[in-house]
């Protein structure tokens, strides 16, 4: 080994440790679950309900995050105004809140006894809509942060160029900023998606855990964990596969969108 080879070796070792630490538990889920268990677990109505609910609520939450979060992030990235730092910190706050705190906060604000209780009543708590609210609350900062950074990194002269070429401000946003930022937006979307799919604490506290109504896959796993570890494991394997596939899909979409070509 040459004199200077120790550092690359160190880097490889560090990566190997990271891979082992992160990969082993995931691998263990599959090593402990036979394919038959996996298919079998999908046959149970509770599991199917949980999976369908997770997909529905996550999709709804992601749609909300994209539609509202994208223009909000664009504003944060392209304008400066008094108190912007405070606004950015508020947007990022859910990132550091423990999920249980997020759940309590949602109850205190849009729960039946919360500040907006007279408006919302019990339309959210213990309802599927409540799950969507909880997912959106915890997952949107992941998207908005990434989207803001991506928009901020855009060449501002592109937006100016779009304006001189006849595009309105909205046109420059829709025809230049969003398409050019798409890879970054997709990455942010993947992060938010992953966070929403795995959401547990806030959902449990705010929406409860009722099969077919608010019991998403993580809640169903927890529900079974005490009574039927193998079933919990099989459902966990399903969640890993679905999450991995979605993450991969979003990344591929982002990559192919990087250049619209001819």
């Amino acid at each position: 080994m040459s004199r200077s080879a120790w550092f690359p070796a160190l880097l490889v070792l560090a990566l190997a440790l990271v891979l082992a630490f992160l990969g082993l538990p995931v691998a263990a889920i599959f090593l402990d679950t036979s394919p038959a268990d996996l298919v079998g677990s999908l046959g149970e109505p509770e599991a199917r309900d949980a999976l369908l609910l997770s997909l529905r609520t996550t999709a709804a939450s992601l749609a909300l995050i994209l539609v509202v979060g994208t223009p909000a992030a664009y504003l944060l990235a392209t304008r400066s105004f008094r108190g912007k730092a405070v606004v950015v910190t508020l947007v990022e706050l859910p990132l550091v809140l423990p999920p249980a705190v997020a759940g309590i906060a949602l109850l205190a604000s849009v729960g039946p006894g919360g500040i907006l209780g007279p408006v919302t009543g019990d339309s959210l708590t213990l309802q599927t809509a409540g799950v969507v609210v909880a997912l959106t609350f915890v997952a949107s900062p992941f998207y908005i942060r990434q989207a803001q950074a991506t928009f901020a990194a855009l060449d501002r002269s592109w937006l100016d160029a779009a304006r001189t070429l006849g595009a309105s401000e909205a046109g420059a946003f829709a025809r230049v900023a969003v398409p050019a930022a798409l890879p970054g937006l997709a990455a942010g979307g993947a992060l938010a998606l992953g966070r929403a799919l795995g959401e547990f604490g806030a959902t449990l506290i705010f929406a409860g855990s009722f099969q077919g109504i608010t019991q998403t896959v993580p809640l169903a796993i927890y529900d079974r964990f005490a009574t039927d570890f193998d079933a919990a494991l099989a459902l966990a394997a399903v969640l890993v596969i679905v999450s991995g596939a979605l993450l991969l899909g979003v990344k591929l979409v982002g990559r192919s969108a990087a250049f619209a070509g001819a």
Partner: protein
Amino acid sequence: MGVLEVEVDLDVPAGGCLALAGPSGAGKTSVLRVAAGLLHPAHGRAACDGQVWLDTTTGIDLAPESRRCGYVFQDYALFGHLSAWRNVAFGMRGKRAERHRRAHELLERFGLGDRADAAPRELSGGERQRVALARALAREPKALLLDEPLSALDARTRAAASRELSSVLAETEVPALLVTHDFAEAALLGDEVGVMDAGVVVQRGSASELAAAPASAFIADFTGAVVLTGIAHGNEDGLTVVALDGGGEVTSTDRGEGLLAVTIFPWEVELAHAGSRLEGSARNHLAVEVLSVTAVGNRVRVGLAAPQPLAAEVTEAAARELGLRAGARVEASFKATATRLVRV
């Protein structure tokens, strides 16, 4: 944050090209951005083809998209996510097939027919510049604004690109306002040159007018002339003698009194062996020391200490015969008629 004060009053005739030249920070780009509606000044007026674009006294301030001006940005600002033809077609209206056809036609005109589907990052600097120009013209603008259209190019590409750009500018019938930090570029591309410094146009005229009669030492220096400062007084022959700061004397046919600058172009300065005074019409002879010898194309630029910095341009053969190298002592001569006296 500094406040930029820009005070200019410019008009460009249809088909004409005014080149604004000046050092960076002079406010050149701000003028373009105000014209395009990308910058909103406290006070200002902009009009084109009879239509008022901006008038702060009446509150008119058209959005950039309503101004119909083609803007070529300094780094071209081609949309990286769109192919060359889509960049060109961006500002066009109409059906996709029609825009596709017209964009390809335009690219063809700029010799880029086969690059229509390339991404901007796959294009060379010169190709990017042409796509940017085609894109700016695609909307049939009423005015063309160009911000340092050649500065992003390497020296080799620049010569060809500037010839091409000057023929495009000559063809278009809309007024063009071009900004550059390079006087030679301004002289080549503009019908008229306005020299800008610290937010004001200090002199405007044809490039040769500016070079021949610079209004100030700054403009003379900017046009590439040598500037020597000193105290001037008239003599009995009706000529002006300038006692240079640091020693030496220069005679000029221009008139002036007091603290002044003498300007002369390097190609008007003749060099000879020290002591071998040239027998000729040159009235000015300065004993100088060679500081540097730099080849510029087929010429050699010689930096001199007179003792103020002076420069001469000679051919390579002349430099060889004179044995020019740093430290050599030579005699610099130039005619009194080749000098200009300007205020410092």
